């Protein structure tokens, strides 16, 4: 018998072939954009109704998210309770989500119950009533939740970060205060709905068991509605890079400080985006990243630290985020900047870069696993007018990019004077 050599790693292969499930791009009879991915072995379906109705389009803070939350709370023909009962009875889930750019209403259901629950979804989208009573309940409870969040250093840091990196009054960076809740008016919400939740501003994405029957059920429900001509693309608001700044919110008795460091960054439409994703992974984008290795696994300052790049329609941003012991806040900051500086001064060793490349390809393979994941992958590029070729180019960049090219990106994008630093807690 051959002795097992436990010190030697088994042979492995780099992921070379990622299969993208095909998306069918079509429209309903009345022209509503309808895309779907048919796959998976369960008789279940997920349907997203996506509107360009995120924070980007609001004139005052909280309007977009409040509209999104309240849309389910009663319609012309049903009370809020009747809607949730109607959907719950069939074991379906109907969720709303508001983001910086879009507002999404998502239905998860067993395929066999689709026809039972769709009428409620349709009511919610076409005829929400936004009653005064529901508005008051929503507002009061939202204020309570907000007050609790304000006790969390991580929440304070995130909130202050967005308003610090974006120009004043930019909808991405609106710094919400309790008074904004108090100033909310139901008429603003109704107007926001009218302007932004039109069917001509909606695209439908279905994934899961989307066979002919499902397509026809959706067409019957939504394809016969009158739709006015598509609105021209809304004006884009540009975001310029601001000079870095420092903001400190002191919280007495805080055992930990939340730290956010970052800046405005290119989004998916920019040629540097791929390379920056790879560079970000090296810095703080996975468990073995440099920030984790140094600040958690070597120093033990934190339970976790990470960094990321958020791509938005009209901007992007880069951020590092962590919560560290109050007594080591300064030391942690020093170490974070040390790691950032290394991105600008030293080429990434080949072995480390190879590891990151393999890791990213493995994660991409996982992100394409199954129709629901693939649906998200599709939408994540489709909203920028891109298609799957975005991922093929990403794969190509991962395989080909050199330490030298990444160093150049480090120099270009990680200048300390461009970085904004937020601390909430106790230094």
């Amino acid at each position, binding site marked *: 018998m051959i002795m*097992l050599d*436990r*010190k030697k*790693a*088994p042979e*492995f*292969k*780099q*992921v070379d072939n990622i299969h993208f499930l095909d998306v069918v791009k079509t429209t309903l009879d009345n022209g509503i954009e309808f895309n779907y991915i048919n796959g998976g*072995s*369960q*008789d*279940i379906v997920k349907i997203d109704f996506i509107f360009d109705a995120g924070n980007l389009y609001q004139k005052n803070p909280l309007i977009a998210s409040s509209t999104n939350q309240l849309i389910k709370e009663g319609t012309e023909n049903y009370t*809020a*309770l009747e809607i*949730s*009962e109607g959907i*719950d*009875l069939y*074991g379906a*889930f109907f969720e709303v989500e508001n983001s910086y750019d879009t507002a999404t209403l998502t239905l*998860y*259901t*067993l395929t066999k*119950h689709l026809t039972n629950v769709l009428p409620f979804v349709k009511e919610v989208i076409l005829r929400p009533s936004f009653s005064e009573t529901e508005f008051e*309940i929503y507002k*009061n*409870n939202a204020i*309570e*939740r907000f*007050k*609790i969040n304000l*006790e*969390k250093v991580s929440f304070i840091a995130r909130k202050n970060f967005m308003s610090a990196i974006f120009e004043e009054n930019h909808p991405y960076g609106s710094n919400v205060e309790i008074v904004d809740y108090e100033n909310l008016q139901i008429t603003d919400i109704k107007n926001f709905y009218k302007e932004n939740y039109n069917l001509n501003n909606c695209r439908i994405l279905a994934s899961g068991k989307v066979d002919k029957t499902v397509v026809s059920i959706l067409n019957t429900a939504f394809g016969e509605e009158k739709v006015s001509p598509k609105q021209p693309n809304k004006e884009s608001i540009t975001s310029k890079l601001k000079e870095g700044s420092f903001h400190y919110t002191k919280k007495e*008795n805080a*055992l*930990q400080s939340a730290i956010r460091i970052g800046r405005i960054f290119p989004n998916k439409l920019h040629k540097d985006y791929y390379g920056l994703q790879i560079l970000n992974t090296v810095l703080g984008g*996975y*468990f*073995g990243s440099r920030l984790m290795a140094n600040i*958690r*696994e070597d*120093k*033990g*300052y*934190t*339970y976790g630290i990470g960094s990321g790049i958020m791509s938005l329609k009209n901007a992007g941003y880069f951020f590092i985020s962590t*919560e*560290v*012991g109050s007594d080591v806040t300064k030391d942690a900051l020093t170490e974070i900047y040390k790691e950032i500086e290394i991105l600008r001064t030293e080429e990434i060793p080949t072995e480390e870069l*190879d*590891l990151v490349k*393999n*890791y990213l390809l*493995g*994660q991409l*393979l*996982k992100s394409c*696993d*199954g129709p629901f994941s693939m649906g998200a992958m599709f939408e994540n590029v489709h909203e920028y007018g891109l298609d799957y070729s975005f991922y093929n180019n990403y794969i190509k960049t991962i395989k080909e990019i050199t330490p030298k090219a990444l160093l150049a990106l480090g120099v270009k994008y990680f200048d300390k004077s461009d970085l904004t630093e937020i601390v909430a807690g106790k230094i």
Partner: protein
Amino acid sequence: MINFEKFTLENGLTVIVHKDESTPIVAFNLLYDVGARDEDESQTGFAHLFEHLMFGGSVNIPNFDEPLQKVGGTNNAFTSNDITNYYITLPKENLETAFWLDSDRMLSLAFTNKSLEVQRSVVIEEFKQNYLNQPYGDVWLLLRPLAYKNHPYKWATIGKEISHIENATMDDVKAFFHKHYTPNNAILAVAGDIETEEIKTLSEKWFKSIPSGKTFERSLPKEPQQTEERRLEVKRDVPANAIYKAYHMCSKTHVDYHTTDLLSDVLSLGKSSRLYTSLVKEQKLFSEINAFISGSHDEGLFTITGKLLDGVSFGIAEEAILQEIQLIKKEIIGEDELTKVKNKIESTAQFSETSVLNKAMNLSFAELLGDANDVNIEVSNYQRVTAKGINRIANQILNETNCSTLIYAKSK
């Protein structure tokens, strides 16, 4: 339906294999039958601290994460009061790397002082981040010892206090490893586009030579029947008053478990549930309200909790909860209400089966509790629940003499 095959190695390691041809990803889930309930009362938080140390290098491999990331994989772990569970997902071509890594740390850890020192600090930061530096973060540190007097569920997985973690020594770490991290105390489940024969070969190659350990006999003190109402009131620097009511309930393997679970769903699952409709929407007493079960292996807790709106007194808020309890104890729930929560179970199960990792985890958990095949009868166990049964459980457990109430008041 989750089809699977099962075999046991000579050293006692149970291996479960589930084939799913639809995915290029393999899930590798290794469960150890040890949790915070197996700790000594003077050394709480140890099972969880140990979980961290499992990533600090093993006898032949200095770093666990690096080689895994290098083959495109990712992993994590969690500890509960009952179990410690380690899981990996990776491209199926590189599956052997998971066998290599996890068998080596079952064989023996590196036990370096550096790892112990660093992970001790990391866990203390975790303690602060999740339990001490969050509004309402210490609730379970208060509620557990109120509800449990004897059973080790009286402490949280993170531990009773930071000093227990500070005082852990390398000798403690080694003793814990030898006692609990043996092949006969573990269950491995692998799910993906794989063949049982292939998994058999890999299991034998990597795990067979690990000697079995002494069988660990669990004998935990039984929690005596609670006979008197218990109350605790604390003041904290939080923006809203909150109330927690924890009632003792059956164990996870008890025949009444599914009925008890559905009782909590009837009360609080979704916006059409009883508590939300009545207490948040109609009476406007709470900003949020919830009912849930702990799902623990031994006798667990059925908890009702809510945050009070400004200006609502604890007396009125608690009375309103008790009214709802009275109602569900008095009247049998309607058929629609029962169908609703059963349908939610059915669809949740369907959606959960889209992930190989969920399937691998569920197979391991079910095997530990008796039989992996129970994953396939779980939904029908819920289907069998009756409205009368829910009424019976409500009357059996939702009594104040069976309840620990925590009044969590704002200090300002």
